[in-house]
């Protein structure tokens, strides 16, 4: 019995170690490679000890100014898309939670169906439309697209959160004369904050790293950082791996920090409604 328990524990430890290795190895590899001298990055056998250098970051700064402009664009689009998606999801989640009607149930199926459509199917037909509207290469088009893509999942998540808030609170506020908007703003939003943050985390991670929409709909003004990184993997003039890894590290750092900070809300978001009933 004891040996069996030990075996199970050992199995769990091996599984956890494997998952950790699987998840962390690419990050560790990227970060350490960004600090290695260029000659050592792909040395065989691998160089585990090396003299760290910031040369690749200096080169990134001096030769790839467009990357930092891309980071700015990524930040603008991410903030805009997150705000839009969170506001829309919260409002929609409130309606779905507090009102029951057959058409509402049908519409939520429609929302989920939209989420199932592969992005490439909508991007190419959208290209001439976006151009016609004069939205090509603007931040706005990406903000709208990213938010649209996440409103469905955000709405479902927010409905689950808001379902957990007792209706009595709404009714008490209504008796005190609060309008629906006031109830949403003063009662629901503060209590559903973990859900809002969970939705925000999903949108931030998606918008910060997204490539396809940005590739199709931007060029110069709204070009995001992932597009610039993809350009570094150039097929004509070769790859400067150190600079590429430095850019990847800079791109990774803010979103990683944000996800770590918001981790507990993310878990709350994923398990919302799991114990309902």
């Amino acid at each position, binding site marked *: 019995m004891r040996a069996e328990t030990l075996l199970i524990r050992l199995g769990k430890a091996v599984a956890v170690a494997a998952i950790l290795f699987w998840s962390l190895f690419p990050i560790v590899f990227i970060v350490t490679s960004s600090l290695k*001298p*260029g*000659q050592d990055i*792909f*040395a*065989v056998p691998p160089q585990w000890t090396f003299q760290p250098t910031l*040369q690749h970051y200096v080169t990134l700064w001096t030769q790839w100014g467009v990357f930092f*402009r891309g980071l*700015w*664009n990524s*930040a*603008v689009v991410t*903030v*805009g898309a997150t*705000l839009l998606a969170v506001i829309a999801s919260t409002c929609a989640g409130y309606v779905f939670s507090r009102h029951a009607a057959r058409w509402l149930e049908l519409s939520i199926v429609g929302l989920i169906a939209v989420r199932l459509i592969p992005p490439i199917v909508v991007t190419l037909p959208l*290209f*001439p439309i976006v*151009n016609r509207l004069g939205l*090509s290469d603007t*931040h*706005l088009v990406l*903000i709208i697209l990213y938010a649209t893509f996440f409103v469905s999942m955000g709405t479902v998540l927010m409905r689950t959160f808001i379902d957990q808030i007792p209706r009595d609170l709404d009714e008490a506020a209504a008796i005190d004369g609060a309008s629906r908007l006031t109830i949403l*703003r003063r009662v629901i*939003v*503060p*209590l559903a*904050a*973990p859900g*809002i943050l969970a939705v925000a985390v999903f949108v931030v991670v998606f918008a910060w790293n997204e490539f396809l929409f940005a*590739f199709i709909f931007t*060029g*110069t*003004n*709204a*070009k995001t950082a992932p*597009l610039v990184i*993809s*350009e570094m*993997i*150039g*097929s*004509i*003039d*070769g*790859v*400067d*791996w*150190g600079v590429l890894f430095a850019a990847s590290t800079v791109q990774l750092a803010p979103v990683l920090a944000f996800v770590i900070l918001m981790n507990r809300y993310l878990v709350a978001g994923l398990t919302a409604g799991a114990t309902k009933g």
Partner: protein
Amino acid sequence: MKTLQTNRRGFLAGATATLALIAAAPSLAAGKTLNILSHRVHQTSLGEGEADLMAAWKQANDADLAFTTFDSNPLMDRLFREASLPETEFGVGYLVDNRPTSEIAKLFEPLDYWMEKDAIADFDDIAPGLIKGMTIDGKLIGIPVRTATQALFCNLDLLEQAGFSAPPATLEELVAQAQKITDDKIATGMILASDLAVFPVMFARAFGGDFLTPDFKLLPDAAAMEQALTVLAGMFANGALPRSYATTKNDDQVTWMQQGRAAFTVLPFARAAQLNDPEQSKFSGRITAVGFPVAEALAGKTPMATVVEAWAMVIPTNAKDKELAWSYIKQVASPETTLGMALNGNGPARVSTFSDPKLVEKNPLAAIEAEALANGRGAFPPFPEAARAQALFLEEVQLAVLGRKSPAEAVEAIAARVAPLLP
């Protein structure tokens, strides 16, 4: 449950800040702007700041240049999409020479009219083969601006360790040197990417054959292609190509050469700088390039038809300011700008540029490159099913190299599978 306090003032402040963030996005300079779709290398070769080769043109035309850059395949995708719209903001695009089919050529302005109206200086100096590649259905649609000529790169240190004092002069010598370096456990003899048609085509041409000629003759000399595949299969079987050949990519060629893991590879001449970059390479200054050698039987009789990739500048038919676009093209294609770009590492499209003393002094490989370019041509001509044809060709080549099929069977299969795709 945690609560989040919000009020009207906070909400308004947040919304205003977001709008300000969006509005504060960097904007381009006002006035006349020529939007250009290109690879980054086309932009950087024009220089910037005080070394901006287009500074005088900008001043004379009161115009600014706005480059939108992508890597090769995404660039072609975007260029064709933009050119398919009723109107595009892009005045000039950079087109690679293996793409313009008759259908694609219709997306771009015929340039003969512009040549008659305001000709490019010393136009005949631009390599005639490159001009031919950009003449589709009798119309000139692009002005060649960049060439990438394939070379045989060798690590001189590894050659010396194996007792060789000079790079190979024939294909047989190349195979022998690669094999000895492998057998002596100095390094892997040669590294080639398995997903590019360039390499089997080069080996076939070294035996006087080809995959597809410019006039669409498939396997004009099947025996030569069979010889090429036999050589490659032999190198793989004997360890002179890496065991990871099936998954080897173009970037592996560079890193293996920089690390001294392979003695030979085939890459464009322009990669010499990267292979010898002291910050990246362990063999800086010791990796040289020569023209890819022909087989002994052809040596001194038939010159090697090296694979050359060329880029040209085109004007989409739906561009707004074609006058400005042509003015840019004319300036970039001029002898002085061509030289300036060549000094910045661009493979010139003008023959005379290779012998310019300034370039010869800066790039010792210029003369060798010029010689290789003189007889070079694309890996295969453009046609609508080119991508599928290349995929089928590579599939059969890989089967032969890995020993899953005999070279003869592979050649037979290439003929049978690719023929229906030809125009």
